[in-house]
C-alpha cells in the first residue's frame, strides 16, 4: 500500500451548502480521498455512519479498514491511535460524546500529549480526536458536558472548536495536517442549525487564529462554538441600546489568538467572555489573565465572564438555567459599559 499524501490541488473548487455536521463529514471525506494515511476510528462510525451521521457514507466508499467500527472502549480507541500514529497512520478518532472521553483521559494526558517530549521528537502523535460537546439538545445525562478546559490545561495538545460549517471543515483538515495532536470539539447544538457555503476539496483554517465576526467599538465579546449564536444575539440586543460590540469567535482554544484578543480589547477597553463550561478553572480565566498581561492599561472596566455554573451539567429539565443566555450576556455587557 502506497502510504502517501496525494498532491491534490489545494485551490477551492465548487461550493456546497452544508451544515456543520455535513462539513465535518465532507472534511473527513476529503482527507480520506487525499491522504492514504488517514484512518477513522470510533464507536458506531462505520455501518451506522455515526450517531450524529458525521461519518455517514464513508465506510461504504473507503472500506472497513479505514473507517473502523471499534469496540466500545475509549481508552482502546485513543491508546491504539497512539500506536497507529507513531507507526505511519493518521488516526481521526471520534469520541461519541465529550462526556464519554473520561476513560481515555489517561491516554490523552499521559501519552498523546507528551510522547513527543518524552522521546525528544523521535515519536510524534499526529492524530485528531473529534467529540461533540455541549448542552441544549435535551440529551440524556452525561451527554452534555463541556470540558474544554481539561484539555487546554493539558500541555502538548491543541484544542479547536468551530462554530460554522466553513471553519469546521477547514479546522478539521488543518488538525489532520498538524504534526501534533489536536482535539476538535464540535458544537452538538449547532450541528444542523444552519447551512453555509463550504468549498469542496482541500482547504484549511489556520489553528491558533480567531476571527472577528462583527466589528464594534464599545466592548469586546469573546466566545466559541455553541456560544457564538448566544453572543451574536446579545450583541444585536446591546446594539439597540447603542452599545457597539466587537465580537470574536476564538475558534482555537489552545493556543489562544493573543494578538486578536489584545488588539480588540485595546480598542474597546472592555470585555465579556462567554463559555458554557463551568466558571472555576474555565478557559475564561486564562483569557482574563492574557488581557491583564497584554492590555491592562487600556481597560475601562473589569472583565466580565458569563459561564456555566460550578455544578455538574444538570439533567435537561434544568439545562436552560445552566447555559448562558443572551439575557445574561446583555446584563454583563451593561455592567461593563456602565462601570
Amino acid at each position, binding site marked *: 500500500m502506497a502510504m502517501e499524501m496525494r498532491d491534490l490541488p489545494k485551490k477551492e473548487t465548487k461550493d456546497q451548502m452544508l451544515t456543520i455536521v455535513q462539513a465535518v463529514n465532507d472534511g473527513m471525506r476529503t482527507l480520506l480521498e487525499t491522504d492514504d494515511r488517514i484512518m477513522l476510528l470510533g*464507536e*458506531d462510525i*462505520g*455501518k*451506522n*455512519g455515526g*450517531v450524529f451521521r458525521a461519518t455517514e457514507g464513508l465506510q461504504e466508499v473507503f472500506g472497513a479498514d479505514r473507517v473502523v*467500527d471499534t*469496540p*466500545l*472502549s*475509549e*481508552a*482502546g480507541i485513543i491508546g491504539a491511535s497512539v500506536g497507529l500514529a507513531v507507526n505511519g497512520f493518521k488516526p481521526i478518532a471520534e469520541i461519541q460524546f465529550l*462526556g*464519554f472521553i*473520561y*476513560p481515555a483521559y489517561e491516554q490523552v494526558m499521559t501519552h498523546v500529549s507528551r510522547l513527543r517530549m518524552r522521546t525528544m521528537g523521535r515519536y510524534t502523535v499526529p492524530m485528531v480526536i473529534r467529540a461533540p460537546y455541549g448542552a441544549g439538545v*435535551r*440529551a*440524556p*445525562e*452525561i*451527554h452534555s458536558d463541556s470540558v474544554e478546559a481539561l484539555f487546554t490545561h493539558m500541555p502538548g495538545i491543541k484544542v479547536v472548536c468551530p462554530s460554522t460549517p466553513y471553519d469546521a471543515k477547514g479546522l478539521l483538515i488543518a488538525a489532520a495536517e498538524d504534526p501534533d495532536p489536536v482535539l476538535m470539539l464540535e458544537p452538538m447544538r449547532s450541528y444542523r442549525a444552519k447551512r453555509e457555503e463550504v468549498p469542496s476539496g482541500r482547504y484549511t483554517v489556520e489553528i491558533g487564529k480567531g476571527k472577528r465576526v462583527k466589528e464594534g467599538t464599545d466592548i469586546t465579546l469573546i466566545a466559541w462554538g455553541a456560544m457564538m449564536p448566544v453572543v451574536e444575539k446579545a450583541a444585536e440586543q446591546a446594539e439597540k441600546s447603542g452599545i457597539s460590540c466587537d465580537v470574536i469567535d476564538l475558534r482555537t482554544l489552545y493556543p489562544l489568538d493573543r494578538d486578536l484578543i489584545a488588539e480588540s480589547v485595546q480598542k474597546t477597553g472592555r470585555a465579556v467572555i462567554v463559555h458554557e463550561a463551568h*466558571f*472555576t478553572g474555565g478557559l475564561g480565566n486564562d483569557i482574563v489573565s492574557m488581557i491583564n498581561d497584554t492590555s491592562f492599561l487600556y481597560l475601562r472596566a473589569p472583565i466580565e465572564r458569563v459561564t456555566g*455554573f*460550578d*455544578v*455538574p451539567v*444538570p*439533567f*435537561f*429539565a*434544568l*439545562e436552560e*438555567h*445552566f447555559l448562558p443566555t443572551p*439575557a*445574561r450576556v446583555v*446584563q454583563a455587557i451593561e455592567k461593563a459599559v456602565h462601570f
Partner: protein
Amino acid sequence: MNTHYPIKQVMDKEGRIVDSSYESLINEQLVKDLYYHMYRIRTFDRKAISLQRQGRLGTYAPFEGQEAAQVGSAMALQPADWMFPTYRDHGAKLTFGADMAGTFLYWNGRVEGCVPPEGRNIFPPAVPIATQLPHAAGAAWAERRKGTKNASIAYFGDGATSEGDFHEGMNFASVFKAPVVFFNQNNRYAISVPIEKQMNSETIAQKAVAYGMPGVRIDGNDCLIVYFEVMKALEEARKGQGPTLIEAVTWRTGAHTTADDPTKYRPADQGKDIVDPLLRMERFMKNNGYWDEAWVQETAERITAEIEKAVEDMESYPTPNVEDLFDYVFAEMPAQLAEQKQSYLTHLRGNQ
C-alpha cells in the same frame, strides 16, 4: 474450571420443560408473578415510546425483548440487596420496586427520577458504559465486611465488556470475594456494533475464567432459567463464595433509543427466529395449566390503570426548582458557589 458454555434453558421456544431438574422448583405463583412483571414492564415500555413520540418524554431507551432477563434477575433479589442498573434496565428497577412515576420523570430530564425509594438500594442508571461494575463490587464488599448476607447485582450489556471498568470490577469482586452477580444482557448489539465486531471471544460467560469466578450462559428469554440461575449465584455469593458472571443471551426487539434507526445496521430478518419472552411464558403457562384468561384480563386492566396513573403523576409533578441546580452538589455549599447561585437568582428575578 468450565471452559465450555452451552446455553442453559428451563423451557424451549414452545414453552415445554427441557430440563427436569428445575421442575420441583416451579409453582403456579412463581410463574404468575414472573409473567405479571414481564407484562407490566412491557406495557410501561410501550407507553414510554408512545409518550416520547408525542413529545411528552425525552429520548428513551426501550428494552422490549429483554423482559425475561430483567424480570427473572430482579425477582431473584432480596429487598436488602443492591441493584446497579444501566439506562436500559428500568424494567429490572421497576420489578425490584422503583417508583414508576419517578422512572418516567428520569426520562423527562428530571433528576428526581434517580432517587431510589425508601428501603431499596437502587443506584442511578449508569450512563457511562461499565462504570457501575466497580461500584457493585464495592457495595458488595462492604456487605461482606459488615457480615451481612446481602449481595449486589450489576447489569450491563455486551458492549460494556470492552471497557476497562468491566475488567476492573470483575477483578476486584473476585479478589475480595465480594458477593456480586455480574448480570450481562447480551442483546448482540452495542448500538450498531454486533458482538462479532465487539469481541473475538465466542461467549461472554467465558470471560469469567480470567477472573477465577464461575461463568454461566443462559437463555435470557427464558424467564425461569434467569430466575433460577441468578438465585443460585446470589446464594453462592451470600455464602461467601464470591461473584458469578451470568451471560443472558437475549435480543432487543426495537431501537437502541428512540433516536436510533436499527434498519441502518441490522439485517431485516435478523432476530425473526426469536420467540418473544412473554409469548414463551404464555405457552409455558398454557402447557402447565396455569393460564387463566380471567386473571390475565384483570391483570392487564390493573397494570394499564397503574401506568396511566404514573403518567398523570409525572405530568402533574411540580415544575423543576432552579435552586436544585446548586443545592445538591455539596453537603455545605462553598461560598463561591453560593455567590453564583445568588447572582443567578437575582438575574432571574430581574427578568421576570
